[in-house]
């Protein structure tokens, strides 16, 4: 028993290392290809056999994306829409999450189940009435026209996550605040909020990522060039006959790199936040 253990351990270790290597390679290879081709000039992108690394590395594609294709507009739209939606969602979900975790309301259970079901309902099933309504209200092709549905669609999951974080705050804190005569709103803002900071961060990251990557609603509601978000702009680049991959990849690197760097820098915080949220939610 004791003799077989170290041997088993050693074998597992090499298997683990091999697996980790495969995992890293499999994940990284397409990413490498994205970066490499963003740096290749047009002719080299279409070359057969493909060149393993850019032989004529150039930044022309980036110039095309931002100057020629107006990619900056899309980034601006995406930033405005995602940040607004995220701020509103974090604000609303804090109070709702607190109420659903702690306040003695009837029907909390059914509300939580309903929220969970709504948060997984397919967007396509909601899109027609939403489109018709926004058309009627003149909200098509506007920033608000996307912010409102983004808030509504991300709130249910956000409320779930916030509620779960709220549950982990010790009750004694609130009781003390109440004895001191603090109003409920004061209690939430000054006592609870500092305790659930990781929760706020998780909700923020989740909502921002979800709205930043959302495609179907953005495609139907904001199809006009001036109001396109990044995914829509990226999908509608080029024509049926020619897809300007170089420009697309340069744009892709420009929007992926900042997020990747953020993830690398804050990886411990992000990962713990994501796992807490995902497992609980």
């Amino acid at each position: 028993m004791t003799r077989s253990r170290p041997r088993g351990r050693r074998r597992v270790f090499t298997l683990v290392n091999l697996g980790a290597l495969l995992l890293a390679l499999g994940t990284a290879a397409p990413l490498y290809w994205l970066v490499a081709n963003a740096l290749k000039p047009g002719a080299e992108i279409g070359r057969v056999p493909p060149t393993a690394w850019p032989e004529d590395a150039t930044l022309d594609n980036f110039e095309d994306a931002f100057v020629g294709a107006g990619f900056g507009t899309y980034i601006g739209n995406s930033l405005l829409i995602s940040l607004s939606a995220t701020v509103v969602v974090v604000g609303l979900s804090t109070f709702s999450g607190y109420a659903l975790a702690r306040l003695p309301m009837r029907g909390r259970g059914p509300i939580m189940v309903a929220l969970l079901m709504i948060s997984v309902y397919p967007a396509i099933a909601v899109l027609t009435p939403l489109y018709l309504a926004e058309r009627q209200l003149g909200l098509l092709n506007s920033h608000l026209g996307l912010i409102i549905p983004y808030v509504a669609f991300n709130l249910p999951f956000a409320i779930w996550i916030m509620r779960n974080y709220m549950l982990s705050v010790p009750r004694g804190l609130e009781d003390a605040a109440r004895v001191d005569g603090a109003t409920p709103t004061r209690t939430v803002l000054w006592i609870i909020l500092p305790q659930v900071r990781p929760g706020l961060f998780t909700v923020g990251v989740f909502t921002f990522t979800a709205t930043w990557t959302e495609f179907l609603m953005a495609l139907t509601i904001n199809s006009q060039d001036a109001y396109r978000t990044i995914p829509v702009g990226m999908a509608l680049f080029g024509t049926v006959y020619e897809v300007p991959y170089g420009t697309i990849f340069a744009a892709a690197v420009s929007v992926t790199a900042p997020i990747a760097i953020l993830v690398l820098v804050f990886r411990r915080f992000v990962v713990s936040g994501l796992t807490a949220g995902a497992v609980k939610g």
Partner: protein
Amino acid sequence: MRMLTEGAAVPAPRPPGDDRRPRAGAPVRDHRDANERRMARVGWIYTMPSLVVIAAVTIFPILFSVVLSFARVRITYEGFSVEALTLRNYLALLNSGDWYYAIAFTVGYTVVTVAVELVLGTLAALILERLAGARGWLMALLLIPWSMITVVSAQLWSYMYNSSYGVITWVLEAVLGLESAPLILGRPLPAITAMMVADIWKTTPFVAIIVLAGLVMLPRDVYEAAEVDGASSWTMFWRVTLPQLRATIAVALLFRVLQAFGVFDLPFVLTGGGPGVATQSLAVMGYKVLFQDLNIGPGAAIATSTGLLVGGACLLCLKAFRSQIGREELS
């Protein structure tokens, strides 16, 4: 319409200082003391803005979509008009081969990708758990595809699959010597497989991270007991680890299934639903009928049927949902 106007006109203000507003319809029973009732009222005031926004933008449209699916709708310059109520939209669906194919494709796609992602994700989580130093870096790397815009990864894969200069085509052709490789996205079965590979690349990390979180929380002493009993690592995985991970894997499964069922971005960009309708999911089909052909009634019928399928799946999982709440309430 009205409900949505109201929801839109109130741009969801945060409710600080709202607690002195008059009661918002809190259910009141005599046996609860005054303070409890007051706190319940505060609770409803806190929750109302969220619930109103959610109801206006999701629940109301879901119901209205059901109405539209029974209607003949005409789009005009001023807006739209519902002309007649009819069952024709659904009868047309029942006679449409495309609709049955879209259901079969969506279900098959969901089953295969989620199954592969669960197996690979669990393996990846086991690897990550045993990895000492490089775990953080590998996880950061895994997070990149997950946080990527699906449209971006779809464009990337469409380039790699390209029939004349895609790197994967080149590998299959020149390195592996396959004659038939060049048309990956041009033939049904290879196109479906290609799409699944792209999905698995992007979503396996999500499963891996959830399972890893479950793994880390498993109690150590069970392992020690099993080790004392002389269990091999293989037995240990099947008898000790996996049974304890069941709840975690169920959560991952639930979320992945429901997400995969609405798959839209990837087929829309990678294949446009083609060749023919080979990769046309329910969402892609609904989108095409609704917004490219502007057939509101039939499109709403497709959307509603998709919603019903998802809703049915949800009801089947209701017990899992409930237990999820129960578990949290205990903690």
